[in-house]
């Protein structure tokens, strides 16, 4: 069985989780300084508490410059890029799952590859 947990924003829940509770921690980061700052601290907590493999998912990546800045901020991780994609906004607006709105959109495809990475 696979359990997927969506934690509260920030690092509060992560700091309260028992050591070694999970097989992998996916840290989601946007190309903004505030997000990068918080993600860096989340990675440190996950490493320290041995919360499995740490995977950095770079979300809302709009262009090569965004990707470059994020990669520079996390030189020790290979990023899983999730492109900025209007399908997510549309789904959000209508309260639907992006998978149901457009299963082959760029963002959904990227999330699919995240699932593959996690299962290997």
């Amino acid at each position, binding site marked *: 069985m696979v359990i997927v947990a969506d934690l509260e*924003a*920030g*690092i*509060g829940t992560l700091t309260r989780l028992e050591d070694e509770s999970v097989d992998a921690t996916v840290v989601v980061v946007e190309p*903004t300084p505030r997000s990068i700052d918080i993600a860096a601290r989340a990675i440190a907590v996950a490493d320290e508490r041995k919360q499995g493999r740490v995977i950095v998912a770079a979300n809302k990546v709009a262009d090569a410059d965004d990707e470059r800045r994020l990669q520079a901020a996390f030189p020790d991780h290979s990023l899983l890029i999730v492109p900025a994609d209007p399908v997510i906004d549309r789904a959000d*607006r209508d*309260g639907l799952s992006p998978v149901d709105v457009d299963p082959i959109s760029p963002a959904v495809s990227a999330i699919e590859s995240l699932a593959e990475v996690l299962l290997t």
Partner: protein
Amino acid sequence: MSGSQETRLKVAFTGKGGSGKSSIAGTFARLLARTDQPVLALDSDPLPGMPYALGIPVEDEPTPDDVVVEGPAGGHRWVLRPGLDAASFIDRYATICPDGVRYLQFGNLWGHISSLQRAQYAWSQVVRELDPDAWNLVGDLPGGTRQAMFGWAKYADTVLIVVEPTVKSMHVGRRLRNLADADWAPEHLAVVANKIADPDDVRRIEERVGLPVIGVVPADPAVLTADRAAGAPLDVAGGPFVESLHALVDSVQASYAGTR
């Protein structure tokens, strides 16, 4: 316009995570300060977002641990140390921002939890005891309903719920409407509709949340540009976002004039 007789604005922004509270609160504070008003920005988010919108760096330790001492038995756990009161605390520890806004942050979540606790007690005491005639207050709460429901925006007589046209954001907005029944219910409770691209969305938000919309803020790519550049929207670009914030300051000021 800065005589001591007039009413000071006491405004807090709340709403779902990511709805735009900090961008709006920070810009609102600076535009209000430009009307020659003394403005104190109050940030109770342990992952502060307001500094970016004000145009100042985030400080890891805004206040040292020794600003507080243990409080008396039966009272607050930590109290400001002797010789330090609300006014002198603001004087020493509130960051000076562009346009003369002063910014009061409590601790960060990544410091020691005990430091965060002390900083929160200090922040709360300052907010309780500051001279209400001396400052206009503009507050920014963390995303979600928890802090607002526990009375963290008691200092405000106007609470503005920032809502974007998504199902989740409108749902949180609707729950925050319950603030109207709290002991500390603000005099004014209204919605700021954010990231609006389609005028029909404003109507949807108003219907779903069940409160009047006092301001409409358009979706503006300049806000994202500012965000990526770590600049304040006000410094990076004029444009629809900033224009709508001017209008919001006017509307809120008018709502005070109307009731007093």
